[in-house]
């Protein structure tokens, strides 16, 4: 385990930002931290990065009790609200932030240059940040986050403001880093990105963990036994065991009771002389699961009192 979080709590004056959350993250995995706006994600991440002290609970980094002095150089944190010195030159800025993360000046310079080359940013070196577009400064921000080769990379909404091309470049870099053994915590409320990128996720809402597991397993857990079958003809007799949900021409969406075997449905259609073109179980998207779990508990959050 690179990171273990045990019963972490952080209460503000007006709300319980993080209320007793525990989870573990394995080395080398891409871990999604999900939740609606204001769920407590950023507070949680700030505690993990040592910016905030938890009110109670424990953080273990690499098996040891987390100590920001000792472990901070093993982490790279890209907060949701990006920040850079507007008047500073881009190259200087990358080197400065790398030095603050513990690199020597020479090392910081050479690594900055490598990254600039890799992400096609070399021509920016002497420009000022205020001249960059939002997407460009996003890339710079990413470079400054990973430049010291952290063991644990924490990205809060890394793709916001990026066009699809640059988002893909960034995604590839994240995959590459994960393959090289970097653990990535990926915080977002954009579910389609999570399905694509993450191995495991934790879903938090109102400061509490409401879901934890691998993406595959969670989808299995939340499946509703809905199947879709596509036949060569649209005019068919349905078996009695299914509940029809939707029929669009030759595509039929239906619900099947879990105790019944899906093979029986196939047999029925084959015996009726139909050709099965496609048969598939429809697993819910994380988005659906997310909405289903979070929906009922939305706006009251901001005014919830601490008891």
């Amino acid at each position, binding site marked *: 385990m690179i990171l273990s979080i045990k019963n972490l709590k952080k209460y503000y*004056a007006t709300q319980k930002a993080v209320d007793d959350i525990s989870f573990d993250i394995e080395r080398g995995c891409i871990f999604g931290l999900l939740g609606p706006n204001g769920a407590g994600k950023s507070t949680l991440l*700030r505690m993990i*990065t*040592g*910016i*905030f002290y938890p009110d109670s609970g424990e953080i273990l980094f690499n098996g040891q009790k987390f100590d*920001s*002095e000792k472990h*901070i*150089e093993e*982490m790279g*944190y*890209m*907060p949701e*609200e*990006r*920040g*850079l*010195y*507007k*008047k*500073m030159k881009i190259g200087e800025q990358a080197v*400065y*932030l790398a*030095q*603050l*993360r*513990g690199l020597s000046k020479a090392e910081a310079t050479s690594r900055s240059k490598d990254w600039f080359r890799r992400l096609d940013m070399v021509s920016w070196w002497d420009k000022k940040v205020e001249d960059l577009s939002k997407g460009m400064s996003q890339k710079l*921000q990413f470079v*400054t986050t990973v430049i010291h080769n952290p063991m644990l990379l924490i990205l809060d909404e890394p793709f916001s403001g990026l066009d699809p091309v640059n988002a893909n470049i960034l995604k590839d870099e994240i995959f590459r880093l994960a393959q090289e053994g970097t653990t990535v915590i990926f915080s977002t409320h954009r579910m389609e990105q999570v399905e694509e990128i993450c191995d495991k996720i934790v879903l938090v809402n109102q400061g509490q963990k409401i879901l934890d597991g691998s993406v595959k397993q969670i989808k299995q857990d939340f499946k509703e036994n809905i199947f879709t079958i596509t036949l060569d003809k649209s005019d068919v007799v349905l078996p009695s065991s299914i509940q029809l949900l939707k029929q669009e021409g030759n595509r039929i969406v239906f619900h099947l009771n879990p105790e019944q075997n899906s093979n029986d449905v196939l047999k029925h259609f084959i015996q009726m002389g139909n050709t099965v073109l496609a048969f598939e179980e429809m697993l819910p998207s994380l988005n659906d699961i997310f909405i289903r779990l979070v929906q009922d508990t939305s706006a009251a959050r901001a005014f919830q009192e601490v008891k």
Partner: protein
Amino acid sequence: MNKIFIIIKREYLTRVKKRSFIILTLLIPFLFIGFAALMGSIASSKSEKKNIAVVDDSHMFEGKLKNNENVSYTIIRGNVDSLKHNINNDDYNALLYIPAFDPNQKDINFNLYYNEQVGIITEKTIGDNLNSILTDERMSKAGISNEQLEFLQSESIHISSIKDGKESSNASSIAIGTGCGFLLYMFMLFYGMSVMRSVMEEKTNRIAEIIVSSVRPFQLMMGKIIGVALVGLTQVLIWIILFGVFALIGLPMLTGGMHTAMDPQAMQQASENTNMHALESLLHGPNWIAIALWFLFYFLGGYFLYAALFASVGSLVNEDPQESSQYTLPITLPIILGFVIMSKAISDPNSPLAIFGSLFPLTSPIVMMARIPFGDVPAWQLITSAVLLVLGFILTTWMAGKIYRTGILMYGKKITLKEVGKWLVRK
């Protein structure tokens, strides 16, 4: 420790490299001199000369009223009642009517008729002129000649203040004290504000969160404060060098130019006496090394004390610049108070108010610095003041660190003083 050095370096270099820093550093001495000259010329500027028409029915003042720099008199004849309605239509500003009167009377009142206020100085001048003529009149009636009168009225005694057997010049102490106090006042306000703006910028830019994820907030704050302090020291150093160059090259050229322009024999003597004497008393009178060292101490102490406070204010502000002025007021007030006490301390360096002001850490840098050039601050006061200042800046830095740590990451909502109090108490 290494990281704080990196921060100091950045804070220092970005400021010193700015064109505005170089321009301001070179310009401020001239602005200072220009400002002093302007103040001097305003203070010594003369009011407009007033023309006063005099109707003298007593005939005592005719021919004796002399025109001077404030007032010129014109004796006219005629009826006062009709004349007083024509003021300003003719060439005078006011009409003084002197009726026939008994010079031995104790209280005598004359009327001055005007349409537009002539001002208190004119009134006083007229009164003085009339009184001195009346006094002369009374004296000569009493049988005292003019020569006797002059002798009687001459100011024969002058006061020289002596300290430790050395003649000290109060004037130069006042000048140095005011200069030092004013410089410290400017520095604390100017650089304190600079620290605050820089903290606000980091907060609103959101870069603070990135930086505090790799260094401790306290390191970031101290790095900034120390970096800006070094900028201030650099500025002072540049001024000292400029002053030194001026003293070594400019001054001899100036006085040298004067010598050749004037009659070498007669004038050399005179200029050496006045110029060199003044310069000598300025150079050898006060203890320059002690003043410089104390200046450095109070500069750093006062700056650190206030910079920490300004930094914590900067961390409380949310984007809205109006908020910052609301929070800075409690900090700028003691600085201004210090300046006010200083102007009192200059005229009376050992008054209780001056002593209090020079011990109380929020005002001591400015007030004590104004007292030190007089050379008679007791050792216990110096030590107490220094110790209190050091304790003061440790306390404010500690407080500021706590406020800053939380404030720098608080966005959106306005922070109340009650919450700030909580942050201070919390571990």
